[in-house]
């Protein structure tokens, strides 16, 4: 297929994906804004004042990057997993399988949709946070890089989940039993330095720690882990998951007989 054709196909999938989540904005864009507002009110305002400073910042300032990252992770994952599984369920994924669309373009289109939604939600949550705290920016390049790599990573993970899923229950298992614990234990609400040494080591096996801390570094300039390590791991995981997603779609796992 001609490069120009691939570009048209990619654009078509991406616009379709964006149209989908914008059409159901009450389900896709409003809930994260409400949930994060509640986090800001409860953890930031009500409880945060009693917790005191963390990493040299007020508790509210400390948790803002983590909460933004939490919404980016959950929304990028759920967007692609539910959209791709719906396409499988309604069988309209066949429209793509029949067409001469390269596997990498299919992945890029769906992942692009997940990234668009999660970035939009990240912006909404950031705007909401401005009502509670003055957001600082230490390094905008790190912020953009980390948020993009993280949303690509979890969008790809959502796609892989959808490929394996056989029912709608299957796409909620990973977010409930894997993603939520990893995110909550990923340093969104606390600094790893508060933990005993053993649990600090255990926490460093959690990939979300590197994303939250990398993102926090971009805002506040502080992090429990090195920014180079964070970025390297993000790039590594992205390559790994893209490879898995490519293999699954190319061989037709879960979508071809």
């Amino acid at each position, binding site marked *: 297929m001609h490069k120009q054709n691939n570009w*048209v196909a990619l*654009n078509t999938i991406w616009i379709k994906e964006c149209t989908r989540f914008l059409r159901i904005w009450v389900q896709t864009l409003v809930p994260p804004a409400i949930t994060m507002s509640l986090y800001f009110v409860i953890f930031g305002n009500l409880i945060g004042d009693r917790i005191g400073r963390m990493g040299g910042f007020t508790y509210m300032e400390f948790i803002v990057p983590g909460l933004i990252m939490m919404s980016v992770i959950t929304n990028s994952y759920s967007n692609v997993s539910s959209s791709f599984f719906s396409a499988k369920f309604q069988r309209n994924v066949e429209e793509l399988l029949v*067409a001469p669309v390269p596997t990498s373009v299919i992945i890029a289109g769906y992942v692009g949709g997940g990234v668009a939604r999660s970035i939009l939600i990240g912006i909404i949550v950031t705007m909401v946070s401005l009502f509670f705290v003055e957001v600082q920016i230490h390094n905008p390049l790190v912020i953009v890089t980390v948020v993009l790599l993280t949303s690509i990573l979890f969008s790809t993970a959502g796609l892989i989940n959808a490929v394996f899923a056989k029912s709608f229950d299957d796409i909620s298992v990973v977010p409930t039993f894997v993603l939520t614990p990893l995110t909550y234990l990923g340093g969104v609400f606390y600094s790893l330095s508060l933990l005993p040494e053993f649990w600090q080591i255990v926490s460093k096996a959690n990939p979300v720690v590197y994303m939250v801390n990398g993102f926090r570094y971009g805002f506040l300039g502080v992090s429990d882990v090195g920014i180079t390590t964070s970025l390297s791991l993000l790039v590594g995981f992205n390559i790994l998951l893209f490879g898995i997603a490519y293999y699954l779609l190319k061989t037709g796992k879960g979508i071809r007989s």
Partner: protein
Amino acid sequence: MNALDITGLRKTYKGGVEALKGLDLSVRDGDFFALLGPNGAGKSTTIGIISSLVNPTAGQVSVFGYDLHTQKESAKACIGLVPQEFNFNQFETVLQIVLNQAGYYGVPRSTAKERAHKYLEQLDLWEKRHARARELSGGMKRRLMIARALMHEPRLLILDEPTAGVDIEIRRSMWTFLKEINEQGITIILTTHYLEEAESLCRNIAIIDKGNIVKNTTMRALLSTLSTETFILDLAETGNQPTLEGFVYRMTGDHTLEVDVEKQEGLNPVFRQLSEQGFQVLSMRNKSNRLEELFVRLVESGRQQQGTARA
């Protein structure tokens, strides 16, 4: 060049079911080709492999000379598929569905919009372009799938039971449309359970059963193998029973006569004898579809041959 060449195609599903057992098939460029077979014969598997929805176990498929394995994208670009089941996003509008499909094939948006207008108009769906797919009737959904398959202007259109569940009026209009696009040069492969449809539209035919082609010939040659046809005649009341010399016949009702007529005999002797006996024929029809009769016979003989070979 053939539109489609299939050689030694095999498919064994995970459970061990052997759907295709070394199928060979060729379809000429410009043909209107019928692929018939009973349920579970392997039609949908064959179409699934041609359209890349099913992975073959072995064999080769080429579309207009492009190998489906090594030149996948060029081969796929030649094919338009109208599947048996509705497989579009029920929440998208008619226009979104056809425009997206064009986009997947790399058709620029401006060209896609022109084609959408053309095909939706031709298939009587333009007024419904902003309706969501789930709001359409069954017949409209079938036509939407045809419009969608034509958006990239394929050279080979595959229709898997395109008129299933569609009323007679719409079915006839779909036939007219399909004949028109075939005359414009698009090769069409049709599977259908309405054998009258295949007889009316197709020039060549293959009958598939249990993963093998049991007959592959022209429609005319196939129909010419029929030696006897049964006609049903409704007679006006006379109070008498007719007798027909030289024919096998029976009365199936008070005024209904069934006559078996050898092809070379024709119907004139039947009418002459009835007229001489003072009977008036009110109406006449074929007892069964000719192709249906042949189809059943060919499938049965194929199964008997397979049974003998195994024994």
